[in-house]
């Protein structure tokens, strides 16, 4: 088999893996922000969820109970965000920053106190984790030239949650654009007063939106700690929440474009790892950190309107106060 072909396949497989948590978080951000609530706490919610999943998986041995726990924890943090920003009209950015910092601190405090391993949780055995799934026929089909390896490496062999991530994009699209809830949610982010005069409670809608965001961040965190890795490590989200935020903006707050932005950013991540210490002919030594910075750079350039214009939901960041 051609080495370059295999390298390409493994890079693409890694792209999908790297993109998985980004997809969940970007979809989470879309829900929250399309309803008018800024969510820069994606990182913190994902981190807390990763911790909860790792702890519960280690204690119960069940990755599915772990998933449930992670979702609950992330949703609770969403409720804190909602309580501060929707009920008390606090600053949405400040609240998000607070959630990120609390999560960064608390996961290590609790992890250290409970397990004493410098903030790491116990290593998980394969049956406590969500392991890659080999799709039917992968082993036999691999013999087929070209298509076989693609099936084996790219289509097959991912965690259950990766398949969920890919399935969730059309689902999010459907909910946003094809259901009553989605219509109202988008309206709440554009013109909450209109929603209110139509007789629909704005605050309840926004609470629903941030809770869904919590749920999705919970799945993202679970993927990180019990699927992609076998333990929770201090600050293991490593800025992925912000990359997802960038992907959401890059996708102009729309599910499909955001999904492709996640794949692009996942791809950059995957090649960055592979290019570590590699000297390419003609280019020479590749500055890997600069490749890793590209998602942020793209987002800045996009926001500045140099390549198309990302227009945020109109009421994003403004608490709704009933006019009187």
């Amino acid at each position, binding site marked *: 088999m051609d080495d370059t072909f295999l390298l390409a396949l493994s890079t693409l497989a890694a792209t999908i893996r790297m993109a998985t948590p980004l997809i969940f978080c970007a979809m989470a951000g879309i829900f929250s922000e399309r309803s008018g609530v800024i969510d820069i706490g994606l990182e913190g919610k994902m981190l807390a969820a990763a911790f909860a999943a790792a702890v519960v998986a280690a204690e119960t041995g069940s990755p599915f109970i772990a998933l449930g726990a992670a979702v609950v924890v992330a949703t609770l943090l969403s409720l804190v965000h909602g309580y501060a920003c929707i009920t008390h009209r606090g600053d949405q950015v400040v609240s998000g920053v607070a959630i990120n910092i609390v999560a960064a601190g608390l996961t290590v405090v609790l992890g250290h106190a409970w397990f004493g391993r410098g903030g790491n949780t116990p290593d998980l055995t394969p049956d406590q984790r969500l392991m890659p799934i080999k799709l039917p026929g992968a082993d036999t089909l691999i013999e087929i030239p070209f298509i076989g390896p693609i099936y084996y490496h790219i289509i097959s062999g991912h965690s259950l949650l990766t398949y969920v991530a890919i399935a969730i994009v059309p689902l999010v699209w459907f909910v946003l654009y094809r259901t*009553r809830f989605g219509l109202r949610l988008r309206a709440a982010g554009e013109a909450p007063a209109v929603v*209110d005069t139509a007789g629909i409670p704005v605050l309840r809608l926004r609470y629903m939106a941030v809770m869904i965001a919590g749920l999705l961040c919970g799945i993202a965190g679970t993927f990180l700690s019990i699927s992609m890795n076998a333990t929770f490590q201090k600050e293991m989200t490593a800025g992925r929440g912000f990359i997802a935020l960038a992907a959401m903006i890059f996708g102009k707050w729309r599910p499909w474009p955001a999904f492709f932005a996640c794949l692009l950013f996942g791809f950059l991540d995957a090649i960055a790892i592979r290019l570590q210490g590699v000297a390419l002919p003609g280019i020479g030594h590749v500055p890997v950190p600069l490749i890793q910075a590209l998602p942020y750079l793209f987002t800045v350039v996009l926001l500045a309107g140099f390549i198309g214009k990302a227009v945020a939901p109109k009421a994003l960041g403004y608490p709704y106060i009933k006019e009187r």
Partner: protein
Amino acid sequence: MTAAASNGAPPPAIELVGINKRFGSVQANRDVSLRVEKGTIHGIIGENGAGKSTLMSIVYGFYEADSGEIRIDGQKVNIRSSAAAIAAGIGMVHQHFMLVESFTVLENVMLGAEGGAMLKEGASKARTELLRLGTEFGLTVDPDARVGDLPVGDQQRVEILKALFRHCSILILDEPTGVLTPQETDQLFRILAALKARGVTVLLITHKLKEVLAITDHVTVMRGGEVVADRRTADTNANELAELMVGRKVRLELEKTPAAIRAVELAVDALSLVDERGVTRLHDISFNLHAGEIVGIAGVSGNGQSELLETLAGIRTPSRGSIRLRDTVISADSPSDPAAMRALGLAHVPEDRHRLGIVTGFPAWESAVLGYQRDPKLGGRFLLNRNAMTGRCEELMQGFDVRPLQPQLGSSKFSGGNQQKLILAREMACQPRVLLVGQPTRGVDIGAIEFIHREIVALRDRGVAILLVSVELDEILALADRVLVMNQGRIVGEIAGKDADERQLGLMMTGSAEQQRAAS
């Protein structure tokens, strides 16, 4: 009034009984009673602040009345929210449209009445229904167009469609023609007539006499929060309504000598302004303002007066035409800014006192130098001298009798009248050659009004050129040496102050003057 039920006539579509509503110290509605017969077009007319909008907000569930009753088809109803109003068959077309601009017409119409958790089924029904309503009432709009891309007249149709889609039997329109062109207005009236023909009851809130006369069956006149008259439209005329609307107010007595007019200070030539949304706010405005005169701009608010003031003050840049102040010409090619205009001797008392005139988060001594924070007398090159600022503030406060005389007090803690006196004092203190004054006595108590008026006249007598914008006709009549009337961004007439009377101005302001002119 009570006879209706007994002689078998149908109960009124909507009846309000003894509605009272108070905001703080302001009685916005006082004992308002009103009955609207089924299948009629009923006008509610009055000046700004007459309480029309408050009343309609109560009917639509935004506010709750302090006391009083709403009856629909003879049944008492409790309307505590918009949802309740919709359920009671009330639809409303707001002055500022309640539309999601990034949504399509169809989505806007469906929002809140989707007909199921999935949009698909409801959408096809809604589409058919829109088509039906469109042909039935002449309300054709492309259901898939983005609302933000539609012209204002079409957006208004979407608002009406929204209400009809919810099966409203009573449709309230709040100042619906303010944003429409004459052609669009005609179309709207045809639609309203079609609605009436099919049994919908229409309430039309407006300040335009011409419209009321053209289309309504009944008209209720409001003034100062109260109903002052109910008329069958056929039994009344523009003169009577204008008089009822404006009322026989006590004309403010003001000692005023005839103006000693001197040279032109400010020359406005063919000035036009197109705002950021592409709406033309000022059309081809020309006038001269002389030293030693007060020119009053009369008009119903929202007819371009604010934009005119802001453009003259340098806050907005003219789209066409020019402004000449002393020897400087300001136009689209050579724009100005507020600081430069001030340096040329132009002072500005803004209409929106709270948001423009002061910084509510500042203490009085800081608000007292707003706009003059670069004045060399207030400090050195980089730093401001607090003593100088406090001293300036104290002087201003003494000169204009601002109470309490406490420069350290927060700007927001002063009453409206005292805030206004401080702003006037500030703007008059810098020896301006031209003074722009917007709504100088809005929300100001009677005592302060007299004081402010005397000061404005005194400034005129010192040779300052003063442009006064006010929606209070008696204020214009008391102060202005010359009156320009604005309507829909144009100057529609000019009268010498001594010749002007309220009724005539009222007719011009409400756009009925052409009609009169045509008749005479």
